[in-house]
C-alpha cells in the first residue's frame, strides 16, 4: 500500500523572536500543518549552511530558517551575517539540484504568531506541489 506523501520540514528558529512567535501561535491556538520539526537555535547567525545541507541529506523535503527581523536581532547583528550566507546558499542549492522553493528564510517576530502559521502553511503547500525529494541513485544503507 502506498503511503501518502507528507512533506517533512526541518525548521531552525532563533530563540528570541521566531521560537517565541511559534509559541504565540500555539498559545493562541492557531492551526497550522504539523509537518515541521522545530529546532531551536540561539540566533539565525548560528545557521551554518552545513546544517541545511545535512537536513536535506537526512531526508528533509524542505528547510526553513526563521529569525528576528533585520534590526531586531537579540545579538544586534547575527541576522545581518546570516542573511548574506543564506542569500548565497539558496542559489547554490538550486544549482546542485535542490529546488530553491525547498529552502526558505523568513523573519518572524515574537508577536507574529499568525505570520508563523501562514509561513508554515504556505511552505507545506508548496512542498506538496513539489513532491518528495528523492535521490536518483541507489541509496547507501544506514
Amino acid at each position, binding site marked *: 500500500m502506498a503511503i501518502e506523501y507528507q512533506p517533512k520540514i526541518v525548521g531552525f528558529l532563533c530563540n528570541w523572536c521566531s521560537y517565541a512567535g511559534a509559541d504565540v501561535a500555539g498559545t493562541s491556538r492557531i492551526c497550522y500543518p504539523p509537518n515541521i520539526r522545530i529546532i531551536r537555535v540561539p540566533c539565525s547567525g548560528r545557521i551554518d*549552511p*552545513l546544517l541545511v*545541507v*545535512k537536513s536535506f*541529506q537526512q531526508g528533509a523535503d524542505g528547510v526553513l530558517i526563521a529569525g528576528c527581523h*533585520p*534590526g531586531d536581532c537579540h545579538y544586534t*547583528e547575527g541576522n*545581518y*551575517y546570516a*542573511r*548574506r*550566507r*543564506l*542569500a*548565497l*546558499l*539558496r*542559489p*547554490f542549492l*538550486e*544549482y*546542485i*539540484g*535542490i*529546488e*530553491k522553493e525547498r529552502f*526558505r*528564510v*523568513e*523573519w518572524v517576530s515574537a508577536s507574529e504568531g499568525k505570520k508563523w502559521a501562514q509561513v508554515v502553511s504556505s511552505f507545506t503547500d508548496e512542498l506538496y506541489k513539489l513532491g518528495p525529494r528523492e*535521490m*536518483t*541513485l541507489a*541509496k*547507501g*544503507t*544506514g
Partner: protein
Amino acid sequence: MDLGEQIRNKAKELIEIETVDCVIGYERATDGVGARPLFAYKPEEVDRLIFDQTCTHNLAKYLLNRKDKATAIVVKPCDSRAINLLLNESQIQRDKLFIIGVACPGITKTGLNNTSEELQAACQICQQHTPVIYDFLVGEPPASEPDIAEAYADVAAMEGQSAEERRAFWEEQFSRCIRCYACRQVCPGCYCTECFVERLDPLWVGIRIAPEENEVWNTIRAFHLAGRCIACNECERVCPVNIPLSLLNRKLEEEVRELFNFQAGMDAETPAPFATYKKEEVFPEIG
C-alpha cells in the same frame, strides 16, 4: 634573459644577502617534462629553479608552514591572489615575505610523463595575467584578456538545465568521490586544523560509501571557499576521479560577484563578504 634566469638571479641575491632563508619555487620534475616544487635554502640549490608553462602548483599553500620564517616565493597571478587571501585572513605576515611575481602566459596540461601545448581549462578563461601583489616582477602579460562571459559559459549551461537534470548530474559526479581530500589538501584556502569532514561528534559526513555522504562533503567544501576561492583550479587538477569542482567554485564566484560585488584575493584589506554586512542591503531571494 628567460624567466627562469631572472628568478634564479633574484633568488640567489636574496639567499646570499640573507633577506630570506628559503626560496619556494619550481624545478624540473624527475620525468624530465613537468615541474615540481623546490625549496631552495642554499645558493647552489637556487640553480635548480625554473619557470615555464608546466609550473602548475600553487605554492602559496606552503607559506602556511613557514608563518614566521623569512621566505621568498614564486607566484603566478592566481597564486598571488592566494597570498592576499592568506594576508587578509591573518594567516601569514607580509614583512616575512618576498614575492617574486610572474606575469603568466597560462599553464599547459603537461603533467606526469605527458607533454601538451594545450592550456589548462582555468588558464583558458583566466582574467588575471599579472600578479596582484609582488615585490619583484618577471615576464610580460599577454596582450588581451578573454571575455568575462566565456568564463561562466559552462555555469550558465548548467543553470539552463532542469532541477532534475542538475540533480542527476551532480549525484553522478559526487558518487565518484573517493574522499581522498586531495582537493582540500592542495587548496590554499583550506587550512583549518580540524575540518568538519573529520569531526566524529557530530559525524557530519558518514564514513560509509554513499553518494549522499559525498554530497555533504563536496557541497560544503565548495561553500567554505565561497568568496575565498582564488580560482587557481588546483583542486580540480588533483582530483583523481575528475570531478568538475570548478563548476561549483565558479558558480559561487559568480554569485559572490553579483551579490556582494567582491572578488577574492584582489587585495589584502577588503573584508570578505561573510566577514561584513550592510544594514541597508536587501536580498530578494530571502526574508
